[in-house]
């Protein structure tokens, strides 16, 4: 059942991703002012969407873990943080590749860019915490706390960064007035792409979640085995 779901997600996600790729390069018309680079948008936005959803999931899992004290929530939260980090990295890279030809700079301290960078640093810290510690219930609680606090911090970050940019003299005022999705084909491409990324990311999440579940069971097994070996040695 679970395996079928994972396989289904992987297959449908990959198929839709190919369809989205086809739409981006063959179907959708080129945007008038930005030209061909604007096509990065159709994969850039879904990546951002996945990253934000994943980070929200980390906080939700954290709350459930602290509340119910079940290892499943910790494993799911960990998996979500990792997947979110992969897509957050992609948002930053593709955004940079978009900004260079359009704004003439790899990086500008635009409010969205800055917020994404801070999110990346926040969840990078979360993953470092996990990498630097053992798989104990205590560390799972630490991670849950960090995930919750980070999510609470996000609205304040968004507000402060936006205010910082508007008050700061803007070097690049033109934020390409909307994204010019006048053409219905552009909307259709974006929607297909978002659907494709959602399925594909869900598949990655399931894969990572499955390995974490296995790791949890193995740890448990190893502990009991060690206990048995000790008691057997005591009898001898």
């Amino acid at each position: 059942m679970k395996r079928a779901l994972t396989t289904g997600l992987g297959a449908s996600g990959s198929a839709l991703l190919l369809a989205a790729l086809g739409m981006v390069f063959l179907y959708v018309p080129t945007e008038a002012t930005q030209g061909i680079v604007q096509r990065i948008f159709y994969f850039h936005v879904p990546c951002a969407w996945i990253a934000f959803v994943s980070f929200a999931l980390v906080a939700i899992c954290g709350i459930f873990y602290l509340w119910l004290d079940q290892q499943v929530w910790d494993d799911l939260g960990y998996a979500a943080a990792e997947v979110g980090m992969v897509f957050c990295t992609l948002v930053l890279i593709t955004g940079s590749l978009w900004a260079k030809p359009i704004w003439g700079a790899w990086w500008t301290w635009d409010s969205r860019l800055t917020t994404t960078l801070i999110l990346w640093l926040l969840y990078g810290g979360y993953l470092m915490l996990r990498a630097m510690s053992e798989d104990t219930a205590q560390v799972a609680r630490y991670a849950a706390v960090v995930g919750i606090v980070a999510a609470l911090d996000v609205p304040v970050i968004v507000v402060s960064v936006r205010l910082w940019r508007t008050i700061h003299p803007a070097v690049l005022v033109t934020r390409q007035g909307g994204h010019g999705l006048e053409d219905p084909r552009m909307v259709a491409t974006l929607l297909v792409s978002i659907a494709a990324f959602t399925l594909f990311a869900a598949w990655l999440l399931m894969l990572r979640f499955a390995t974490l579940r296995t790791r949890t069971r193995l740890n448990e097994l190893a502990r009991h085995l060690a206990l048995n070996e000790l008691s057997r040695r005591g009898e001898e």
Partner: protein
Amino acid sequence: MAGLSAVLLKDLKLELRSGQSTIALVALSLLILVVLVFALGNEGVRGPEGAAGALWVALVFAGTVGATKALLAEGENGCLRGLVISPVDRATLFAAKMMAAAIFMAIAEIAAVALMVLFFNLEFDARLARIVPILALGIVGFAALATLLAAVSGRTRAADLLMPILAVPMFVPALIAGVKASAGVLAGRPLSGLQAWLGILVAFDIIFVVSGYLLFEQVARED
């Protein structure tokens, strides 16, 4: 209340007896200001923007070191375990630790403000009085955040490294608001014109004091 003052007084007494970390924090603040003056160059940075930036860099570093020390010191000799099993409840423990960190940070910041006036050629006048509430809000927020995160990273490998890695990105909104508000005040603007920034600082403080107070229980618990 009794538990709170007992733990807080214990920390302050310990510090009064040796005075080591206070001296170290003040020295660190001094060094950070000197480094920033060198790093930013002689001209152009001596304005309110540069001074405010230097002040907040000193706050972040002093806070990181101060909070890590306050909690890691307890980790040695199993003192934290002793505190956790004492009748003081964990939320009170958080409040006491946070206050101790805030007091040490405040001492370091007083020294940093005095040095900033000297190094950046400012005047000792009303503007400095107006910077006090801004710094106080920053100190409370960072102390709460750092206390919670020092407890989180305390029992991991490379705890002293992990704490700032977790704390600094989380502190970004308060840092932005604090630097902007301090620069405004140093440039002679009244506090009433900086309400947006003060609002962010207050919101940040509320979020981290409340969540720290509620979540410290989970962090300090031992299995």
